[in-house]
């Protein structure tokens, strides 16, 4: 992955992480591109858009778009699957996740993200493992 952005239907960013170093203006351009290219797409269209040196692969869950930027040669289908894995993990943690959960528990969702992806690469493909680690860490905090 190059970056990971969660965007609401209204174009508000709910979570974003750039695994490679981009300048602020590049980041802004990327989010702008996402808002312009992905949000207006019809549900039946394919979930891949080419944009310059990378592709946006996205998946929509209710009013939230999970957008991943990947280099051109990457297997798009497995990326879709990875997005789904992340969503399932969120779902497992928040117990049927909704947009508000993400807004109010930003750091929790970030922790899940970092537990699953490091440097843009998948780290753990078992969501149970992920959740176990998160929950254990939570217990330590309390």
């Amino acid at each position, binding site marked *: 992955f190059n970056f990971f952005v969660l965007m609401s239907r209204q174009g508000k960013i709910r979570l974003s992480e750039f695994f490679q170093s981009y300048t602020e203006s590049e980041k802004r351009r990327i989010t702008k591109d996402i808002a312009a290219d992905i949000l207006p797409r019809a549900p039946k269209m*394919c*979930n*891949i858009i080419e944009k310059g040196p990378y592709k946006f692969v996205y998946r929509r869950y209710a009013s939230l778009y999970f957008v991943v930027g990947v280099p051109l040669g990457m297997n798009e289908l497995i990326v879709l699957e990875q997005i789904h894995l992340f969503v399932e993990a969120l779902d497992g943690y928040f117990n049927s996740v909704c947009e508000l959960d993400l807004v109010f528990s930003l*750091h929790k969702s970030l922790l899940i993200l970092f537990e699953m992806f490091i440097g843009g690469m*998948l780290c753990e493909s078992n969501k149970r493992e992920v959740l176990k*680690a998160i929950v254990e*860490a939570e217990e330590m905090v309390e």
Partner: protein
Amino acid sequence: MSLKLRDLIRKVRACKTAAEERAVIAKESAMIRTAIREEQEHYRHRNVAKLLFMHMLGYPTHFGQLECLKLIASPHFPEKRIGYLGMMLLLSEEADVLMLSTNSLKNDMNSKNKFIAGLSLCTIGNLATADMSRDLAPEVDKHLKGGMPYLRKKANLAMARCLTKCPDMVEDFVDRVVTLLKDKNHGVLITVVQLMTQVLLIDSRNAEEEGEDPFETDCRKAFLRLVPMLVKMLRNLLGSGYSPEYDVGGISDPFLQVQLLTLLRLLGTQNETASEEMNDVLAQVATNTESSKNAGNAILYECVQTIMGIESEDGLRVLAVNILGRFLLNRDNNIRYVALNTLSRCIVEQQYTGDGNVPTESANTASAALQKHRQTVVDCLKDPDISIRQRALELIYYMVNQGNVESLAAELLNYLVLCPREHRRDICTRIFRVVEKFSPDDRWRVDTLITMLTIAGREASRDVQSATVIYISRSPPDIHAYATHKLVKAIRDDDGSQRGLLVVGVWCIGEYGDLLLNPYSYTPSVRNNDATTSAPVSITFMALDAVSVVEAIKTIIDRHSCPEYVKERALTSFAKLSDRFADKGDVAALDMLAKLIKKHEVSHSLELQLRSCEYAALINASKGIKTIITKPAAEEEDLFGLADNGGDSGESVSASVINAAKEALSRMPVVDLKVLRKKQEDAFGSGTMPSGNYPVEASAPASGGGDLLDLNDMFGGEAPASAPAPAQNGSSGGGGEAPKSDLDLLSDIFAATPSSAPVNAASTGGGGGFDIFSTPASQSTPAPANPIDLFGSPPAMSMPTPASQNSNPLDIFGAPPPVQSQPAAMMATPNRRQHHRRYDSKDAEYRRRSYLCFHPDEKNRCRRCTATHQEISDYLVLFLPCYPKLMACGNQEHWMVLGGKRTPILDVKLNTKWLGYDLLTLTL
């Protein structure tokens, strides 16, 4: 005190406008800054959490970077955790403070708490810079060797990052990988496979940089030994029963499978043995994977890519192509996209590798399968989804061959109509390439290109337009007529917006206008293969008469939206038409053409004006009439006695001149396409080329007249040396004073004693005279203040004092006295912008002339011109209103300043008259 995180979020969400939100954030930022300054440790982690939120909203948070580092150093886990999160989000790799965290990261990595160590590794994986990588790699390595799987998998990815940043460390870690592969934990396996992939990529990049063979490195060799192990792992995954832990839609760990396949692809590329080892398992994956779910398709897709990437068996390739064929028919758009994408990649690779060699069996299968699905691909062009359309377009482009070019080109043209405007240019170029490569015959090619321009003439690139012209001109005469008829029709139907079409059309009409006067009909021969269709429809164009041909072009250039370059071409076209129609006896058309050509003699645009005048001269020359400048003030005596000198021998132009002029107007030579392309030249060079030649040729007829010119002529005639400047000025006061001033001019030339009258006269005259390049508004343009500066000295020279300027307003080359700076003979044009454009022209001839047109006003002098004076060495053409004076000053030595050097003028020759100005050739 600042808000709680939750309250801040609530407050921001309650904001109704963006301004309100900004206010809330600004206030909170200020609070946080204060807290940071006052070192309120207690609130530190809450503040960083708030900064995370603000960062997400897109507000600046750089001031919190150091706070993150402080939190990391804290001994408490919750604070550390927020600190690391903050670090990963708020800091970028470039942040200077990142270095400060190295020590904390090192300590935390060795922490007993696996979560702390995990966070540290994760941060390294996301952020490490090259320096940090070097420092921390040994610590990361410790985790690779042993410890918990939880940390091992993170260490793998952290190491992948370190190696990416410091490629030279790669070799040290190759051995470590081998042991890791034996791990049981899926997380560790998937990360180590990714690590290996990274290592391979880095390694081959290293090898390339050092000029070694990337397929022969030690690292690759070590990994190749592992292939059987990887294959076994993949087979185990396939064979293993249901394992709920890693199951996705009935497929066990698709992520690991995909990663393994990717790694195998890298290892199998250009390696027979490794490919051999993989064949079986790949076949197994390809056949056994269920394709009803996305996860299964992802694996299949990766498998196909691997099969195509390695040296696989032909049977396997057929299998892969069949899978892609199935994908193509899939309802899911993603899968179709992937299929289109992979197919075009396959074909490109085949074309690449199959170049020169006999295409292998498998190569045929891939493209054969593709041809089988042609209709499906073509249908994809009509998909509402731009991604799919783009891919399909790409694929079709590769699919075209001799057999299907006609139907596919038709599809492409259809798509051209539908596609968004910004893609048209690219598609035009592609259609053009396809047509160029595969077209069955000239007629079809010309036909397709014209249709394309009709659809997208606006967007088609210049190259495409030019090449179209070339193709038309290279085809047999029958096609000329056909194309020209077709273009006339297309142009008439067009609303003037398809500029490319206009350009091509105007050129063809000019070149082959005479062919339009005959009717044209063509019956397409029935092809063997579609003999079943009904009787062929013959195409017939009616004959046009000359006037309507001219009208067709006239309509184009009469439109306000008509761009200048079309007008320029139209002028050339008119010139050619007047040659083509010359023997048709259609006086009305010829008159019309003559008028149209002359219309631009006073145009604002230099180029138009130039063409207009030169073509008029050329046409006159070809008729045997000597160039005569018709001036508004016709009663002015012809300065050089060119017109009314009554039966002078110079009156008629020599036969060779006529021939030369006719030659210029005759059929364009067909330009060799290869040469043209090689030069990457705008092929319309072929269209405008003659105009580059015209000045030379046009000067030929007039030089005969120039010879006539001598001092006798000038002083012998009645009121002889009337300065053309007032004549040009034509109207108003200047004209009235002219005779007097002329006398003064002459007297001045000889006496070098100025009087006040000539100053006035000359300046009014100058005002008009300098204005040749502008139209009636000329009077309002700032006339040069000091006429003496007409021959203004370049800045490098010492200036004449104002006094001397006043006293010798007309002392051009004349009296020696104050002449430190008897300057270059130059002509002025007030319109510097146009001049610049002209100056930038690629045409050297053009530049030469432009050189002479700078502004006499010292302050406004064109810097660019002075900068490149050196370019002119031996040849100059001047437009001088005061040529007579130059001639008149006898045998005194003249010189001008070129490139800061004083250059004597050895000889002056009148070349031709142009717009009341004399074109001189100076020999330096």
